[in-house]
Structure formats: C-alpha cells, structure tokens
C-alpha cells in the first residue's frame, strides 16, 4: 500500500494506526493528551474535530466508499481553521482523486491500489487550470489574474 506524502512515494510510515476520533472523545483528559493522531470521517462532529484538532500531528480522513466526498470538505475546514499537521486520505482513494485531494488540503494519501505505478504522480499536474480558490491556491481564477497583472 503506497503512501504519498507531498507527492512523494514513502516506503516506511511513522503512522501508528490512529484510533477513531469517536473513541478518542471517550477517553479521559490524560489519555486524550497522549494521542497525537486520529482518524475521522463524515459521521464525526466537525465542530468537535475542529475544537480538538490543534492537539494532533496527523488526522486521517476516511473515504468509506468511492461516492462519499465529505472528507474533501472536512479537510478544507481543518486547513482554514489553521490545522498544520498531516491530513491523510485513507480508504477509497484513487489516482483520479489525487489532485482534488491536494487542492482540498490533503498532503498525504494512502493508495490501496494493486495497479499503483510511479506514473500515478502525473495526476497532480493533469489539469493546470484552477477556476476556484481552494487550500492550495486560495485565489479564484479572477483574482489569480489580478495578482499576475
């Protein structure tokens, strides 16, 4: 299972199999304080996640099925709130989501793909035009032109 971090393939992972955010919330304060990474998804309370996020180094956001796109918005909200740790996409990720994931603030992706090839990285640059602002490029197209003008 390849792990991409900032568009680079990582062999070894420091990821310690984080606990679910829902389980984390049930721990007492002392136990919570020792937790540095968690995994969350669209079923978790986004408000709670934002509240606790500054304690974590890594938040793994799940894509439970291909069609579930909630984690795109969750990542965006975390970055806008100032979360500076790693946001990792796990679950039903794919080559064809890489660019959207990065644009929404994911800097890491686990690709559970038997067909994985180095060429997958080309996905990041397939579309060079970004009409809308997002985490990677906060300015929408009309303000990008303003800046370059």
């Amino acid at each position, binding site marked *: 299972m390849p792990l991409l971090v900032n568009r680079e393939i990582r062999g070894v992972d420091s990821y310690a199999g984080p606990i679910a955010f829902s389980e984390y919330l049930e721990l007492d304060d002392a136990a919570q304080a020792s937790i540095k990474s968690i995994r969350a998804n669209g079923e978790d309370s986004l408000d709670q996640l934002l509240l606790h996020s500054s304690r974590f180094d890594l938040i793994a956001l799940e894509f439970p099925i291909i069609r579930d*796109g909630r984690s795109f918005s969750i990542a965006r909200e975390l970055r806008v709130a100032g979360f500076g740790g790693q946001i990792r996409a796990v679950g039903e990720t794919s080559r*064809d989501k890489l660019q959207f994931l990065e644009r*929404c603030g994911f800097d890491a992706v686990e690709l559970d793909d038997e067909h994985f090839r180095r060429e997958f990285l080309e996905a990041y640059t*397939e579309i*060079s035009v970004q009409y809308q602002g997002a985490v990677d490029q906060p300015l*929408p197209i009309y303000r990008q032109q303003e800046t370059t003008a």
Partner: protein
Amino acid sequence: MYIYNEVDQRLVDERVVQYRDQTQRFIAGDLSEDEFLALRLMNGLYIQRQAPMLRVAIPYGLMSAEQLRVLAEVSRDFDKGYGHFTTRTNIQFNWPKLEEVPDILERLAKVQLHAIQTSGNCIRNTTTDHFAGIHPSETEDPRPWCELIRQWSTLHPEFAYLPRKFKIAVTGSKEDRAASQVHDVGLHLVRNKAGELGFEVLVGGGLGRTPIIGKKIREFLPAPELLSYLEAILRIYNLKGRRDNKYKARIKILVEATGIEAFTEQVERHWETLKGGELRIPQQEIDRVTAFFADHPYNEDAAADLTLDEKLEADPDFRTWYARNTHPHKQPGYRAVTVSLKPHLGAPGDITALQMEVVADLSERFSFAQIRSTHEQNLVLADVAQADLYEVWQVLNEHNLARANIGLLTDMIVCPGFDFCSLANAHTLNIAEQINQTFEDLDYLHDLGEIRLNMSGCINACGHHHVGHIGILGVDKKGEDWYQITIGGSSREDASLGKVLGRAVAADDVASTLERLLETYVELRVEGERFIDTVRRLGVTPFKEAVYAVAS
C-alpha cells in the same frame, strides 16, 4: 457570448487528455468498473440500454453556429446522424462507442465544447431563461452570472463527490422560463430599493420521486457574493446531505429534514465566514464577463420594414407560425424565433445533423450566429429582424422545423423513455406519437390554447411531469406500461405540483383520456381561460369525474 481565453481552452484540452487516459486505463483493466463509473459520469457518459450515451454541455443553453455545426459533425461521424436536446438544455448522443468518446471530446474541445459535469453527483450545467438578454420585461441579463457559476463549478475539487447531482437555474425576469423553483438552487436577479443588483435565492426545489417547490433562503444576496453564498450552501450540503439512500440524497430532502429556518441559519452562519473574502467577485471581473453578452449590433431601422405585415396578410400559414413560434424582443423590429423540435411524428427534442446545419446557417444569416436551446427541448434564434422572418420560416418549414405548436399541447417535454434509457420503467415516444396522431388538427390545438404537457418514463422525472399543466408518468405494472396523469402543475413563476387525476390508464388509452380531459376543459372554461387556470379554479374533481365516468 462568452469566448474562451487561453486559460479556459487549456482546461478543456487538458480534460480531454485526462479522460482519454482514464478510458485507456479502463479498457486495459487498470481501472475498476466502479471507479470508472464515477469518472465517466462526471464526463457525461452513461451506459444505456442500447449503447453508451454521451451528454454534451450547452452552458446555459447558448451556442454558436460553429458549435452547432460541430455537433452535427459529431452526430454524423460518431453516431447515427441525430442528437437529442434535454431539459437541462444539453444535447445527448445515443450511439457513441465508449472507446471513441475521447475523440469526440477532442473534436468538441476545438470549438469550446465539453461534456464536463453533465452527469454524476456534481454541479451540473446551469440553466437560464431562453430569452435572456432580449426579453422586453427583463430586469437584468442572467447569462454573465451563469458563466461565472460555470467557471466556479467546473472541476470544483470539493464538490465532485456530492451526495447527489446539483442543479442551478438563474432568471433575470419576473417571469420564470427556467423552472427555477424546481431546482436545487434557484437564483432570481433582482434590484433592491437602493437599486443594487442581487439575487433572491431559493433552495431545495426538485422533481424526482419527491417533488418539492424551492424555498426562499435569502431575500437579497448582493450579486458579488453569489459564489461565496453558493459555496456555503454546497459545503453544508456536502457535509450533511444523506448518503445512505440515493433517493433521499438531494438537497431538498436535507432542507425538509432540517427545516428551512434551521438550514438557513446553518448556511448564513457559514457564509459569515466567507463573505467579503476571496470569493467575492470583483467588479472588474463582473464587467469582463458581462461585456461578452453585450447587445448585438441591431439594425436601428428594423421596425420600419413593411414587408412583414404584407406577408402576414398574404400567407395564413406564416401568420399562424408567427403568432405561435415568434416572441417579443426588446429591440423594435426584432423577434425571437422558436425552432420547433416537436414535429408531427418524431421524438420530441430530436434533431438530425442536417437540421442542425440548417439552423446553424439560418443563425449566421439572420441571428448573429447564435442559437439557444430551451429546457422545453426546442431551439431559439433569438435576434431575427422582422423583415427576415418570412425567409426564416420558409427554410424552417422546408426542414420540418416550423410546426406552429410552441406552447401548445404537442409542444411536449418528453424524456427518451424505455427505448433508450436504462432507468425508465415505461416507453414515452410511442405515447408522444399517439398524442400527436390524436391531436393532429391544428385549429383544435390552437383553440385549446396554452398547455404544457410533460411526460416522464419513470419516477426520476427527467420529463418534468410534476410541473406540466398535464403530466404523464409512465409506470410498470407487472411488465406492462401504464400511465398516471396529473393536472395543474406549473414550472413558471406560479410554480405548482400537479395533482393525480385518478387511476393510471393503459398505454392505448392515454390519448383518449386526454381527449376527455380536454373536452371537459372546453366545457368548463370561461372566455379566454387557459387550461391550467380552469384546473386551478375548479380543482381536480370535475375533471376526474368526467374522465373516469365512461369506464365506471
């Protein structure tokens, strides 16, 4: 109309390459069915009953003569020589080969056309009034705002995997020709007391198995904040819309479940964090996009023409067509012409390659080389000088595009139904034909007056049956096609959902049922009263009693 700059062009070009690669990986077995499904859908490709179906976007229904010619070319080279216009003002090709789709897209990209987000659970083609920019009573031209929405929504990284599809309609007039109240978001351009431009915003309208009229979420949204507000709505929807059941995944269900007050509060609270930020559209950008939709160089003396009156006097067929298929224009001496894609016997909304070329030619000669597609599945030549109308009519007539039935019973909105669509439960095209055969007499049709007949082959309601004055829904009963009839629906400014007339009727009885229904209307109407108004005045009961009396 909007013309791509280098950046816009680069996006569609890169998209073609990207999609070609996705197709190749799928064919090579590197991409699973499920993954490719999501990708091809976002690119307008369905796998249908007979073959794949490719839906090409006509952004807000506006296209150039050159684009229409390429659509004709595509239908000839890659399909069976025809296309089908849809209620989202897009065009569908029913017979392309999956492996040839990248080549089709490449051909389309050369004339600034694409199939991006014409299906799938993402933001779809924005639709608008087909008389935008030319109607005498318009407040403001909605098309620049449609284009701004098009750009913002195209490949939006956050909203490509929404709970379900998302459709936006924009109007700029008190009259609603875009069915905006049955859209996920309906936007009405208005001016406030201070004279500033903004939008009245509706949310949560829709058809399908749970038809709902949209609810007002904001009375007045300052126009430059359009995209920040849409983003707030979409983000709440993406996070909170249901994903456990595709029939309950549209935003209308979320709005109903949350309650419009609570939903409004969530959106407004989130919008507070966005407004005034990067998404606020600078005046410079509004001006840039608006400039593309400036008035054509009209002939100021067009109204001085005397030939129109002579031709109207001399030719009764032309006179009938003029009364039914042409419409007022803000510029004196000009009319908008509806090209009827509802011929006597032919699938509503279908158009052959030759017809596309004929319309493209006419637009170049007489209507500033632009064509519009309508959600009622017709085309419009929006800017024809009155002196040219006779010739336009003659050419259209010669090519079976001038049936004088716009707004009448036979100007039906009809989905392709069971003949093509894998979702459909029942056929629709045979019923449309049956209705055409029964109601052949033009004088009778004209006497019946304005009637919007909408037909869908299944509960998904692509044919907008709930908002037809008369709605027909095909249902499957033990392997047989049956049809449920509703009356009293409207998608206009007075939007309403039709009420069921009575038990479903067998396929052979649809037209005869309509005959009894309309005979009842003729008996009950007061002078000058439209069908829909009679139904509204009297309710369903007298119609029901009259229609079903025979059988019981």
